[in-house]
């Protein structure tokens, strides 16, 4: 699908500031980093989780475990989607039992992927608590899912989308508001 | 004219004129555009005045030859009426342009005695198609005891065969050849070595390997062809090889003829136009016995038909009910229908490509009748009208659902052909399809 960039909501500098602010909020709300772990949702949620973990380590001096979660097998649109999505890596290199997990994703929209991620995490273990951190909340929830930490709230209309670019796989760090042109 | 188009109630050829046809009869050096007059089933050739009360059929552009004869057909009656009857098989023959067929005895019960043979002859007696019965060579086709050949020859039988399988016991084969020869009749052999072919479902080769199907080696047919040739030489008898399919068979038959050995042979459209690769989708419409072979075999068969090593072109028309063929490939019965596609296939792919029209006529009009010692039809004044009417430019698509045969198992479904049988005239009847 082609898209047309309507606005640059967050530029590279703004991106770094948002990560820093989120890291501080997470540490504050959790009163420290005890039993804290990040789980990033494929794909860009993983890079965000890694950056947040590094920032928290910078601030608090302690390293935190980071897991990678692919939710493809838990989606609710299997058999109604155009193409079978690729199944990506899931790797949680620590025991989830009794951990305070911060689930990280780049864009929160209907809430369906987070619902799938919650089901996946439950099948993988029994965390003590799960909080949700997202870089952008674009509204239009279809399920009762609420983020605990939000980078930016961006109200959007139906034919708009929010695209997050990260230097790990894109050419820049940015949050873009785009207009989607249907093929 | 509508009245001549009926298959169920064929019209009498009392008084009709086939106008403007190109009449071709190589044995009479005839190849001319003229009018053919038919009165009470008898021919006279124009130019003459057309009687006012005659039915005149404008058949300009059509070719008329003496009636085509299919030397190898299965009419399935008695016992296999689900797949075909004598009536439906003859209608299929007419639709395909054949005025005569030789029907095989592997019915239930087999045609191995005079009573059964007479029954078939009587059923066919009133039809426009001349049905010659090939009787079984051995009782119950068991390959052991000879049938009562002289009684059957008195009835009109001129060929004996255990078709469907070979006569494996060479002593029995030898005796059958000698005895039939004494009576002026011939043994038709389905050439195969059953021990080599046992369990086989298709040709043994690259494709049976790719498809995991048990194979029937070409060696099986070739070995039996050679056995028949040498036994025929030893007994000085005549032998006919059914449905030749392998390159080596053609080579041995060619050699035998050069030696003056009395061997004749037939070839079917599927062995001339298809190869074993066609089985790749496991479609049982490509399963027959002998099976489709490799490209070298196909080319050898084409060459054999062209140079006359293979005397006649016939179909081995083998109808099967739909549900019989709708089974797993290795379990489904062998056989494909052919009466209604043979002529179209010949005109589209053979005549003008591998042999000329006169040679084709020799293969389908004269050769089969000579093999059965039958009188030869002719296009001449005073002769009984025995004609095949062909539209050489007529294009059509093979649609099995439109067949007159009760069965639909053809490997040529969907083929686009140029050249179609327009009708036949024979035994006082005329069946001519509307344009």
């Amino acid at each position, binding site marked *: 699908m082609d898209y047309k960039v309507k606005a640059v909501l967050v530029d590279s500098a703004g991106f770094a500031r948002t990560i820093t602010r989120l890291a501080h909020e997470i540490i504050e709300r959790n009163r420290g980093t005890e039993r804290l772990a990040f789980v990033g949702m494929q794909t860009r949620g993983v890079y965000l989780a890694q950056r947040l973990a590094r920032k928290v380590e910078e601030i608090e001096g302690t390293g935190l475990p980071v897991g990678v979660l692919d939710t493809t097998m838990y989606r609710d*649109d299997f058999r109604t989607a155009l*193409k*079978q999505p690729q199944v990506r890596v899931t790797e949680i290199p620590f025991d989830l039992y009794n951990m305070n997990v911060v689930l990280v994703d780049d864009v929160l929209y209907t809430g369906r992927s987070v619902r799938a991620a919650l089901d996946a995490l439950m099948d993988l*273990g029994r965390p003590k608590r799960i909080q949700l951190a997202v870089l952008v909340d674009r509204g239009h929830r279809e399920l009762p899912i609420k983020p605990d930490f939000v980078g930016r709230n961006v109200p959007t209309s139906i034919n708009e989308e929010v695209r997050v670019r990260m230097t790990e796989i894109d050419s820049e760090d940015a949050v873009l508001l785009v207009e989607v042109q249907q093929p | 004219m509508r009245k001549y188009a009926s298959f169920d109630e064929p019209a009498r050829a009392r008084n009709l004129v086939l106008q403007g046809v190109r009449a071709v009869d190589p044995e009479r050096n005839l190849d001319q555009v003229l009018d053919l007059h038919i009165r009470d089933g008898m021919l006279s050739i124009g130019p003459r005045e057309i009687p006012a009360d005659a039915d005149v059929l404008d058949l300009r552009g059509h070719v008329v030859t003496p009636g085509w004869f299919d030397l190898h057909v299965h009419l399935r009656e008695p016992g296999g009426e689900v797949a075909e009857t004598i009536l439906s098989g003859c209608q299929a023959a007419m639709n395909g342009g054949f005025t005569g067929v030789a029907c095989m005895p592997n019915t239930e019960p087999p045609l191995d005695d005079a009573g059964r043979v007479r029954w078939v002859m009587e059923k066919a007696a009133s039809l426009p198609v001349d049905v010659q019965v090939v009787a079984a060579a051995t009782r119950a086709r068991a390959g052991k005891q000879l049938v009562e050949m002289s009684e059957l020859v008195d009835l009109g039988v001129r060929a004996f065969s255990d078709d469907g399988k070979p006569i494996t016991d060479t002593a029995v084969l030898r005796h059958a050849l000698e005895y039939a020869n004494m009576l002026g009749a011939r043994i038709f052999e389905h050439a195969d070595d059953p021990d080599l072919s046992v369990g086989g479902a298709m040709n043994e080769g690259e494709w049976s390997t790719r498809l995991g199907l048990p194979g029937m080696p070409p060696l099986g047919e070739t070995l039996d062809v050679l056995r028949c040739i040498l036994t025929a030489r030893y007994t000085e008898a005549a032998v006919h090889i059914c449905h030749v399919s392998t390159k080596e068979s053609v080579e041995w038959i060619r050699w035998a003829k050069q030696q003056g050995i009395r061997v004749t042979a037939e070839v079917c459209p599927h062995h001339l136009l298809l190869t074993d690769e066609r089985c790749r989708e496991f479609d049982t419409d490509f399963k027959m016995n002998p099976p489709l072979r490799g490209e070298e075999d196909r080319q050898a068969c084409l060459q054999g038909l062209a140079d006359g090593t293979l005397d006649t072109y016939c179909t081995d028309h083998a109808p099967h009910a739909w549900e019989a063929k709708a089974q797993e*490939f290795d379990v489904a019965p062998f056989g494909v229908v052919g009466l209604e596609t043979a002529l179209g296939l010949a005109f589209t792919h053979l005549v003008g490509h591998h042999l000329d029209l006169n040679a084709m006529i020799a293969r389908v009009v004269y050769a089969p009748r000579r093999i059965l010692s039958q009188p030869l039809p002719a296009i001449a004044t005073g002769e009984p009208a025995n004609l095949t009417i062909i539209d050489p430019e007529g294009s059509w698509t093979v649609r099995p659902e439109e067949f007159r045969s009760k069965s639909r198992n053809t490997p040529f479904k969907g083929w686009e052909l140029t050249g179609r049988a327009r009708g036949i005239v024979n035994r006082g009847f005329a069946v001519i399809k509307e344009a």
Partner: protein
Amino acid sequence: MSLLSHKHLLGLVDYSESDITTILDTAERMKEILERPVPKVPTLRGVTVVNLFMEPSTRTRVSFELAEKRLSADTLNFAVSGSSLSKGETLLDTALNLEAMKIDVVVMRHKSPGSPHFLARHLDSIIINAGDGCHEHPTQALLDMMTLRQKFGTLKGLRICLVGDISHSRVALSNIIGLRIMGAQVMVCGPATLIPREIERLGVSVTHRLDEAIQRCDALNVLRIQMERQDAGLFPSLREYHQYFGLTRRRLEKAPAPLTILHPGPMNRGVEITSDVADSEHSVILQQVTNGVAVRMAVLYLLAGATTPPTEMKV
């Protein structure tokens, strides 16, 4: 449409390198799921799978059943004895009955080559071939390739030799087809009476000497030899077979480098393979079994995908 450009898995013959790579990559992901405390995902919930096993088989059927259940599909088993097939119902009628029951996926094993193709002509369901006579056994070849890829990193240029009754082996044919697509070099080794006609045309080399094969390959896939072949006169005795084609430790020691050993199972210990080889550190036979479930999960996942027109994908 799935990630694969196919509706069915009737054989590997029409699959591309990219298709096979997709299946193997997805199978690696599925393997991870099998190692979880709750080794189950809800992906095929509501999907009905019938295991139509018309030839006796426990291991393949169990492997498929496990794969289906791990994906939360509803599974039904139609086995030979006790089903309508043993009462003489034709394959066609069985197919039409399944069609009337609106089954999503049929996993079929049958003794006749082409029977899954037959079913595919008569049913709307997705058909997965679990072995059709002596024709193909695509999921076995896929799990063999997954195992080899895990061991060697790639299949390209890998030299594999299949040993045994090649002419009656669907495992051999699917392996030959699949490995050639992936760029491996394939050799077959067995008695002349058990090597099918013109197999060189499939791009494999042929030898009748196991010692020669051992010198020239990286891995051996040892096929089971069946008693029925001796009865059919295709080789004189199991004793002789073991003498000349049996894989033993002593034979393997002559290899220039240690060979990886595969076997589709079940093994005739002491005939085509000895225990000291089957249980050695170079044997990957047990990994094959684990990979089998993962590969079958991958195939089910990739084929049982979208069947209705696309709606907007919402995240």
